[in-house]
């Protein structure tokens, strides 16, 4: 330890009073005091408890149930212009499928009306000469899709093709001459055999929620102290900048981890997302990410010193980027190079890769280690930057 001589703080602004109590213990005591002060403040203003505990539960429930890319009960109009046994059987395929809600119509104009009003998402049209063409082996089913939601439309398209294909296969099995192929595909989806979109959406949601609560918990705290002038009051105490920052980080970190545990419990027991990796890896990488998120909030708050601007900036740099640019929904590889470069700066990208892997694939160290290392680096840089920005100096 250092000898007891009058020291100056790093920027040389004010002399620091020499410690008289045992030196090693004093910072701990001071930090502890700050943590307690912050904790009292949290308890007295229920809004930050709401962010840390209620919000994650609310969000995971809302989105865990609400967000889904699985398509069921697509409203479809089937226009039977050629009612024959064959075509009725084809229509029955659609009617029996859980993927479609079928309306059988005799003619196109009515179907067109329904589609214009978006009462149906697609029209399956079986033309008058279908049976005749079928016997010649060149029949055609016409599919008109409402293309406004392109991704949905593509899923509907594949369902319809699947239903028609199954019907053809069944006819083949019954001895009708049907040529399939020659090459067919046997598909297997690793880690998610049944195509549950929830399996990747729920881990992605945890990323969104941790980003939010982490950054929002701390985004306002430093700015609030600046605005209220209470930071100046802290300056005249022996507390050092590091200690102020630690005092701010520790209580919010604890609260964020509570939120995380609640989210993981919900994803496991409510949404039945398999957790194939170990809980410890999950907890470790999440702690790292929470530090990064808290660091972002602290940095914004310390640098901007205004609650209003800090809130706007936090909103811009956390929520939407974590939603759009993290690989949570949209494939990163398909983005143009400049946009992809931006994603490398975003911590959410690494956490999404980590969570999707730890949840669905297991502890694959080749994925876990590099991504965790990046997060650790980011956390260190952010906390150092915050320390650099927060000077014991009047603005």
């Amino acid at each position, binding site marked *: 330890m250092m000898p007891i001589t009058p020291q100056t703080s790093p920027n040389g602004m004010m002399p620091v009073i020499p410690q008289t109590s045992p030196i090693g213990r004093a910072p701990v005591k001071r930090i502890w005091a700050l943590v307690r002060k912050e904790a009292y403040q949290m308890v007295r*203003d229920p*809004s*930050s408890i709401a962010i840390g505990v209620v919000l994650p539960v609310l969000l995971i429930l809302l*989105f865990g149930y*609400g*967000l*889904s*890319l699985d*398509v*069921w*009960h697509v409203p479809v109009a089937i226009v039977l212009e050629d009612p024959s046994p064959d075509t009725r059987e084809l229509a029955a395929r659609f009617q029996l499928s859980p993927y479609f809600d079928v309306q059988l119509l005799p003619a196109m104009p009515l179907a067109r009306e329904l589609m214009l*009003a978006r009462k149906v*998402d697609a029209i399956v049209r079986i033309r008058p000469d279908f049976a005749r063409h079928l016997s010649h*082996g*060149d*029949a055609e089913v*016409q599919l008109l*899709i*409402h293309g406004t*939601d*392109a991704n949905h*439309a*593509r*899923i509907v*398209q594949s369902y319809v*093709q699947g239903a028609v294909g199954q*019907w053809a296969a069944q006819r083949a099995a019954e001895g009708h001459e049907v*040529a399939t*192929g*020659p*090459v*067919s*595909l046997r*598909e297997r*989806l*690793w*880690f*998610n055999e049944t195509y549950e979109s929830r*399996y*990747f959406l729920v881990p992605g949601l945890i990323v969104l929620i941790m980003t*939010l609560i982490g950054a929002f918990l701390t985004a*306002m705290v430093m700015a*609030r102290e600046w605005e209220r002038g209470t930071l100046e009051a802290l300056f005249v105490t022996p507390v050092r900048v590091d200690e102020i920052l630690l005092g701010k980080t520790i209580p919010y970190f604890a609260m964020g981890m509570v939120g995380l545990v609640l989210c993981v419990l919900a994803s496991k027991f409510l949404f039945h997302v398999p957790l194939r990796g170990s809980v410890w890896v999950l907890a470790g990488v999440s702690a790292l990410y929470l530090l990064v998120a808290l660091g972002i909030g602290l940095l914004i708050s310390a640098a*901007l010193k205004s609650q*209003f*601007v800090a*809130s*706007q900036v936090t*909103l*811009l740099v956390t929520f*939407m980027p974590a*939603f*759009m*640019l993290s*690989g949570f929904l*949209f494939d990163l*590889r*398909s983005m143009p190079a400049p946009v992809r470069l931006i994603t490398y700066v975003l911590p959410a990208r690494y956490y999404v*890769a980590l969570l999707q892997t730890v949840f669905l694939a297991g502890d694959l160290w080749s*994925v876990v280690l590099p991504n965790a290392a990046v997060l650790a680096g980011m956390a260190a840089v952010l906390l150092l930057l915050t320390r650099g920005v927060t000077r014991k100096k009047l603005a």
Partner: protein
Amino acid sequence: MFDAFLRILALTLKELLAVLKEPRSRNSLLIPPMLQCLIFGYAATYDLNDVPYAVLDHDRSAASHDLLAHLDGSGVFRRIANLNRAADIKTAIDERRALLIIQIDQDFERRLLSGLPVAVQMIADGRNSNTAGTAMGYVGAIVEAFNADWRAVHAQASPPIRVAVRAWYNPNLETRWNMIPGLIGTLTMMQTLLLAAMSVAREREQGTFDQLLVTPFRPVEIMAGKALPAMLIGMVQATTILLVAQLWFHIPFAGSFVTLYAGLSVFLLAAVGIGLLVSSVAATMQQAMLFSFVLVMPFTLLAGLTTPISSIPRALQYFTLVNPLRYAIDITQRVYLEGAGLSRLLPDLWPLAVLAAVSLAAAAWMFRHRLT
């Protein structure tokens, strides 16, 4: 009447000045929507244009090369490795180097030539099952093209049934065409709602709200003076994004701008109303921000932009009925792609009008009955 108008105007000007005079807050209102629209416009797409895949070709025949050439020539699939052993499949997928593995059996060509059906195995990384599903769909289409070529060359019968697909309004089913119009409402709502929510909370925290209450302003006028500037800023933001969509991304615009702006004004009124309601409930700026965030997030995610509303469970679908963004996205997409007129947009417009009326009335009531 004229006095009231003047007072509202004065308050609007003061409010605009308060937001715009500070360069930081001025910049935070105009530059981000533009940047976000540019970046998210490129990012928010389910279409794939780069799918890394690896091949385990046990056959190594002319036919298997031909099939793989179809994949490589698509411009979407990028072959990263030719694997030699089945054990390599696991590492290629685990390390995320390949999204797909194509496995071709030894007797591929022999069976093809003798007219027997052949299966090609495809393994996909399901950590994002939507991306994987889309990629597999692409492979399916390419294999169909290969089949058609093969049948043409080898004079085999074509399958008896085809599905002829035509998509209305978006013939190539490009996600960008529905995402970017949807961004107009999404990006605008976030900041407008927050702006309205913070405006009163800030006055309250700084103690100037009480001063405002002792002026001749009636509560309704204060409300109008707070709502108008937020709406104006929202309109400017929406226009900025619209310009990016038109001039940069060239999204085809089938409808009329008058309809679009009519729809957007009702939407912004509803968003501002909800913001003011939040503001009237919140005691501090932190609370205002928190409350608006608790609203903005579900509004954004459950609006039908990224995941369809029809996939939401029934009970939660009722919640989306009070989500102004849901209607705004529908309006912008339909005006953009379908060229819908006001009469066809009525099912979206009247709920927005009701939302605006209810939230503004509730906010006005709260302002009058709460003085803390």
